[in-house]
């Protein structure tokens, strides 16, 4: 029971109580658990293919040093050899047969030596394999995947903001027959997760002719109950007098929406925009059933199909993963406050 103390007090004392120590310990463990896996992934993505298959793995990306030795066309890998006389020497490996390796002294290529492979250690140096990243853009259709993801995210977010703010405007600033029904209908869709209408949504997308088209991923989810709710609640706080005044000046309803209500809703729009970007960038199930052709893959789909291959090319896969998490991490770094207050306020994600 007494161990629970640290969880129960809401306000610490002036000096550091042992429960404070425990709290900070918990937080540090949390910091490690949440970030260490990501950092490990990022460091690993800078390893060469050879370094990746090394066991046990190292944290930093090491690669074996190589030397150019006279008389050999290719650079040879460098090892630290324990000699029979007890001294150590750096030598290059010419070739290896079973457990015996033929080594030469890089300075004196005529100085040859046969060594048991257990008597030597690879000489490593720190080097970042930027090629994992560079190759992505050259070798693969990675650019296409990136473009598809960006296109879907940007267009879908713009449409989401437009359509949902229009609906929110109608539901907050008018008084028409059926308004309540419409609002309830829209909010009720919160109860219908996409997973349970997967098959018929696929049919509709197919019938509209959007299968294997980026629009097939964009359109089905541009209307979101969360967005309508969030924006409506915000627009309710905009004084009606503003709108009345504009009507006096013969502004059209569209102008009132576009020039008055929309600009005033900027904070709520920003929150929805952040959410929309996260949803779209990370979306998986809908693209998975709509986009089956390689050239329409989003980053998420490309990652999935890459990791499913028989010989997973981890060095490219990890680099691709890192690129995929960069935008999200940037959003997190700069906009974390807005997201967390948005969630705490509306209880939505």
């Amino acid at each position: 029971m007494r161990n629970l103390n640290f969880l129960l007090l809401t306000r610490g004392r002036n000096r550091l109580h042992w429960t404070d120590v425990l709290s900070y310990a918990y937080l540090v463990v949390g910091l490690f658990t949440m970030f260490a896996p990501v950092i490990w992934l990022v460091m690993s993505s800078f390893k060469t293919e050879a370094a990746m298959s090394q066991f046990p793995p190292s944290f930093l990306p090491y690669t074996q040093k190589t030397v150019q030795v006279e008389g050999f066309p290719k650079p040879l890998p460098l090892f630290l050899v324990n000699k029979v006389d007890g001294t150590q020497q750096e030598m290059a490996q010419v070739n290896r047969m079973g457990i015996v390796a033929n080594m030469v002294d890089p300075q004196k290529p005529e100085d040859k030596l046969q060594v048991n492979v257990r008597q030597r250690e690879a000489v490593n140096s720190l080097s970042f394999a930027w090629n994992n990243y560079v190759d992505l853009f050259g070798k693969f259709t990675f650019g296409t995947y990136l473009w598809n993801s960006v296109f879907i995210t940007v267009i879908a977010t713009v449409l989401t903001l437009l359509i949902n703010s229009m609906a929110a405007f109608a539901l907050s600033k008018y008084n028409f027959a059926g308004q309540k029904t419409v609002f309830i209908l829209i909010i009720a869709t919160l109860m219908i997760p996409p997973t349970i209408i997967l098959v018929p949504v696929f049919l509709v997308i197919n019938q509209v002719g959007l299968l294997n088209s980026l629009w097939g991923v964009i359109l089905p989810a541009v209307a979101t109950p969360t967005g309508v709710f969030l924006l409506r609640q915000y627009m309710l706080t905009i004084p009606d007098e503003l709108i009345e005044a504009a009507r006096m000046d013969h502004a059209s309803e569209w102008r009132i929406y576009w020039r008055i209500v929309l600009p005033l809703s900027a904070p709520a729009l920003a929150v929805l925009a952040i959410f929309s970007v996260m949803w779209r960038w990370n979306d998986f199930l809908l693209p998975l059933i709509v986009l089956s052709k390689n050239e329409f893959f989003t980053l998420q789909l490309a990652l999935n199909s890459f990791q499913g291959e028989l010989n997973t090319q981890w060095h490219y896969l990890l680099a691709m993963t890192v690129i995929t998490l960069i935008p999200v991490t940037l959003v997190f770094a700069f906009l974390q406050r807005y997201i967390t207050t948005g969630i705490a306020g509306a209880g939505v994600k």
Partner: protein
Amino acid sequence: MRFLAVFFNLLEPFFRQGQKRLGLQRVAWLFVGPNLFVFGLFCFLPILINLIYAFTGGVELMPQSRPYSGSENFEILLHCDSYFDISTCRKDIFWRALLNTAKFSVLQVSLMVLFSMVTALVLNRKIKGRGFWRGVFFYPVLLSPVVVALIWKWLLQSQGVFNAGLVAIGSAPVEWLTQSGWAFFWTVFVSIWAHMGFYTLILLAGLQAIPNDLYEAAEMDRASPWRTLTRITLPLLMPNLIVVLVLAAIRAVQVFDEVFVLTGGGPGSATTFIVQFIYQTGFAEQIHLYGLAAAASMALALILIVLTLAQLRLTRASEAGQKGR
């Protein structure tokens, strides 16, 4: 900016016309129209079509060319020779998926509530840099399920850092993702890792709404910390706890993407859950059995309805309880 101006000018006459015809209030239909159109096409219509699929057979995608099959799809899903032995069921994989989902949900939700509660309580203490620490636990929430799965797949692979640790302390490496017990454990762990921050945030918001004088009064009365927790914090946090409990349950029942990438549902069917069953029967397998997938999704819908009703009940009960206090 110019584009926006053009867009505005294009639509204004249209709305002026509408205003003339419909009047000042009913012009709102033009504003809510696009939204309702999208919802109708991609949400309400599919709900109806789903019913048609569930009661028709065959492999055709078009509803009109599918023969009516009555309750056959449900019989295929639910029939077992003996209900004490899953392997005698006609679709044993469905039952396994159902059982796995139940097991997963109970484990994941209870651990999720526990961890996010502890984290929220710690974050609610007087600590330095609360915003930073809150962000720390929230970061994985933003990552995509595929990225989350790949991060952990890389750590857990046979030559990964976990096995390096095991070898370093002298024990044998473990195939984390291809032994059914461990694979199941990691699906639970990874999904908690990825989503805990979200629930922590909801609970923290609830904790910060509890007025401080209650705690001061409790301190004056020399209430033990345990008593303060059970008599002040927990009762006042109940509405948020219910939200967290039900949201977590609704999401746990629908678990798919992380697990799909992390284990692919394996080894065998050890980590196959309902949504993956629906996806596989309807889309991934050679013959697309849309009817069976739709029937299974109705089973899922049933579970979700029950959970939502439970939430309403619980919320009402806790509100009534607070009034009675």
